[in-house]
């Protein structure tokens, strides 16, 4: 059976896993890292850097290092959170043609799915190297609270990366899947997922390999990065107070502060106090430099981030109460996401649910493992009684705009997927040939407060007196949580055409061209790697030949014409190889290599057969 990758595409870190011989494994990259930073950069020499390489040079190349793409994907440029992030990050953003967000990287402008696709390609390559085979299918995870636009954009990222995304599953569900895999259990669990950029809480019932989501809630803009930002803001403020000078828009300084903040935050999970040391943080003019050296206590960190934790609590309250549940109703608590390592967070969770969280779940890896399990389960042909089944739900209500700007709900939140609802639409004027339907996701009664999914236009209706033409429209939400709309004319029973407008997603052509661009990039990277390999082999051979040349010349002294011919050939091969290297000509280089190898082996034979030259 073809392998399916389970990819946790996180805000700060990504992880890839695959089921091997019936058990899911996280795949480490060549450096031994089991997670990869979700970062993309453009080095000064024009090379694209992804993952650890990108993170390492983030300070010196802040303007061209992209992070936190997941906080922007599928959002409108004008939304509050995008504007907030724009003010905080050193890289440049712009508004895209459909009101989406685009990123400046070097000379080019990229859409968010493209940026994320670069991280996905990296994860794909990590897996392919380990498995030794090409992987084209994947299950990608998304926060449970992601809306249709964000999910669609993530799926596009997968396609641009050359992956067939057979399913998208929710992160908390994936973690629950990893928790229950291979274990017989009948339990009610809650997954508290506080990752780098998003927060989800899901309550699930697990019963003999069936995982049913009871309710889910969250915030797609609340996570570890916000905790980091609090510390960073504190550092900036303390610096200003101490030195009476503002840091200003110094990208390098800000990036150093950000990294120091993250480091301090992590250290405070294991220590009560940590030292933040930033020498030469700011230079003004030729002579003035300022340093920052301060201790930060755990208690201080907790004060700085208390409101963020309280936001989590409020979301838990609402999610549970909407489903008629209380914290004590759950049997097991599962923590997911790096930020749940913070002691104050763990304390809050334990207090809220009355249990210690389970220890068997790795907060950084569980989601990827769950995704791999689900992928394997979907494609397996032998679906026995113990095959896992996910009964997930939609996190937002689906509604349409009606007279007065109100939103009428067609599908309630927390409805089991896949699901559908139908409604009959009619014309309001004589000879009306088109009907426009605006679809929203959200809980508010006012459409303006919900998220516009898209405008669907039914056109080509037959001209008739008003009220006579009736069209049945069905709204479907797939198991991935993606919304689709289909229409049927009731009188004729024929499928009606639907046009989708104002959906800020990429169209097929754009995706295809972005995928081609990625393929080109990969080809050029592969070619470069190949060239490096050829060149180093050539260099080694040439050095060896040079070394032995004088000895061989002596040996061939008495060989007459044959010897002369051979030696002149050696010289010409060396010369041609040198030019090939200079001109970076791979084809020529390949030819030279075979000659060089021949010369080298001949030299070996000669030096072996002859005794050592005398005198």
């Amino acid at each position, binding site marked *: 059976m073809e392998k399916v990758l389970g990819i946790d595409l996180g805000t700060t870190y990504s992880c890839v896993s695959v089921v091997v011989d019936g058990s899911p494994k996280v795949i480490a990259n060549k450096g031994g890292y089991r997670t990869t930073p979700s970062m993309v950069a453009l080095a000064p020499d024009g090379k694209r850097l992804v993952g650890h390489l990108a993170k390492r040079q983030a300070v010196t190349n802040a303007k061209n290092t992209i992070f936190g793409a997941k906080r922007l994907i599928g959002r409108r440029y004008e939304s509050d959170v995008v504007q907030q992030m724009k003010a905080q990050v050193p890289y440049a953003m712009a508004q895209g043609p459909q009101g989406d967000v685009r990123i400046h990287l070097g000379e080019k402008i990229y859409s968010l799915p493209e940026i994320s696709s670069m991280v996905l390609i990296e994860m794909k390559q990590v897996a392919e190297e380990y498995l030794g085979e090409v992987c084209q299918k994947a299950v990608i995870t998304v926060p449970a609270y992601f809306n249709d636009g964000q999910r669609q954009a993530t799926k596009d990222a997968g396609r641009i990366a050359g992956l067939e995304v*057979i399913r998208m599953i929710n992160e908390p569900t994936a973690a629950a899947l990893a928790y229950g895999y291979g274990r017989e259990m*009948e339990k009610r669990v809650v997954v508290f997922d506080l990752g780098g950029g998003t927060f989800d809480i899901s309550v699930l*019932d697990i*019963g*003999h390999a*069936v995982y*049913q989501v009871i309710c889910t809630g969250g915030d797609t803009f609340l996570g570890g990065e916000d905790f980091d930002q609090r510390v960073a803001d504190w550092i900036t403020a303390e610096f200003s107070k101490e030195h009476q000078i503002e840091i200003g828009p110094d990208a390098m300084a800000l990036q150093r502060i950000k990294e120091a903040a993250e480091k301090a935050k992590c250290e405070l999970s294991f220590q009560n106090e940590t030292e933040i040391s930033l020498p030469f943080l700011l230079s003004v003019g030729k002579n003035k430099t300022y340093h920052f050296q301060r201790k930060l206590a755990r208690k201080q960190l907790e004060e700085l981030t208390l409101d963020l934790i309280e936001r989590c609590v409020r979301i838990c309250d609402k999610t549970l109460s909407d489903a008629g549940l209380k914290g004590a109703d759950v049997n097991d608590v599962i923590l997911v996401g790096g930020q749940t390592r913070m002691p104050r967070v763990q304390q809050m969770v334990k207090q809220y649910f009355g249990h210690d969280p389970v220890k068997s779940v790795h907060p950084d890896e569980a989601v990827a493992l769950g995704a791999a399990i689900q992928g394997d*389960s*979907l*494609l397996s042909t032998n*679906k026995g*009684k113990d*095959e896992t*089944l*996910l*009964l997930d739900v939609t996190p937002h209500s689906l509604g349409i705009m009606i007279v007065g700007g109100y939103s009428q709900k067609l599908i309630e939140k927390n409805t*089991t997927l*896949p*699901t559908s609802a139908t409604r009959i639409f009619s014309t309001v004027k*004589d000879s009306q040939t088109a009907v426009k339907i605006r679809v929203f996701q959200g809980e508010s009664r006012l459409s303006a407060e919900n998220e516009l999914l898209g405008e669907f236009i039914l056109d080509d209706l037959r001209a008739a*007196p*008003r*009220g*006579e033409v009736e069209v049945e429209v069905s709204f479907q939400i797939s*198991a991935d949580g993606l919304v689709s709309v289909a229409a049927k004319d009731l009188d004729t029973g024929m499928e009606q055409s639907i046009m989708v407008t104002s959906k800020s997603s990429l169209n097929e052509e754009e995706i295809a061209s972005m995928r081609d661009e990625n393929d080109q990039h990969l080809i050029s990277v592969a070619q470069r790697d190949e060239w490096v390999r050829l060149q180093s082999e050539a260099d080694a051979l040439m050095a060896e030949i040079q070394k032995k040349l004088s000895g061989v010349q002596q040996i061939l002294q008495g060989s007459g014409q044959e010897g002369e011919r051979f030696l002149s050939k050696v010289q010409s091969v060396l010369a041609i190889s040198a030019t090939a290297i200079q001109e970076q000509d791979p084809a020529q280089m390949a030819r030279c290599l075979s000659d060089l190898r021949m010369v080298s082996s001949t030299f070996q034979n000669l030096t072996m057969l002859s005794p050592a030259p005398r005198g």
Partner: protein
Amino acid sequence: MAAGPSDRVDLTEEEQKRILCFHATLDTLTLHELLQVERGAPDQEIKRAYFRVSRDFHPDRYFRRDLGAFQKKIEAIFNKINKAYEVLADPKKRQAYEATLPTKITPQRLEADRQSAKQQKESEALRAQDQHLAEERRQRRLRHHPLAKRKAIAEQHFADALCNRDSDPVKASNCLQLALAHDPANPTYLKLQEELSPASRAMRVERAFGRAQADESLGSYEEALDGYLGALELDPNEPRALTRAINLLVTRSKDRGKATTLAHRLEEAHPNDQPALRFLARVYRELGMYKNAIRVLTRYLGLSPADKDAAKELKELKKLD
């Protein structure tokens, strides 16, 4: 039965049979039977049953398999299972549902009874529904029919017209005009129109004349003249309006042509109206039309021979001519 075991779909024979069986009984079984639980089963059992049945019929179980006609069946089954769980998992809904089921269970007869009763109920319901829908549609069409709406408006106006017929003929006439605007060919309306015409017109003329007189007394001579002319449009031979209009035309606007026209009209319409004649004589004299003045004065004297002043005037006029 539509689709039987087939080689083209990606399902084993057992799977196909199970799907067909389940689908066929979707509407005849109770929700409990659908989930395969006892009536008094506890919530835990209901959930377990839901999980069990879901495993067989959730679309993911048939992921990426070619299902042909079975796809819709599976979707319908899973839909129904979800609905069944929704009802039975909620205590209130479950109670309400169970109250609708028969209490005594005798397996064989119950099955037969239930089948026939359900079938009958279904077909009746369907028929009623069809009829109801068709009727609704017809009503909707009628309601939305543009002519129906206009007719309704016309009726309204006609009712108003009838109300005001005796008390205020002008208003009644206006309402009737509106009614006729929306429904021009209506014979009832047209009949009423005929009835109202003379009375209302006289009223209107009276009103217009009254207004013009008021204007004149206040010194708004132009408005007054317009008013008189307006009244004359309704009743071209109204003597008082003519008189006043001519007066204004001669003294104020000096429009001799129009004055002359109106004077002629007054003469023709009221040949034996003595005050009118007397007035006209003066007017003609003012306008320098002595022959006309003589003619009119002569006729006046024919009717009132005793008027010494008029006779004197006549002599003067004859001298002037």
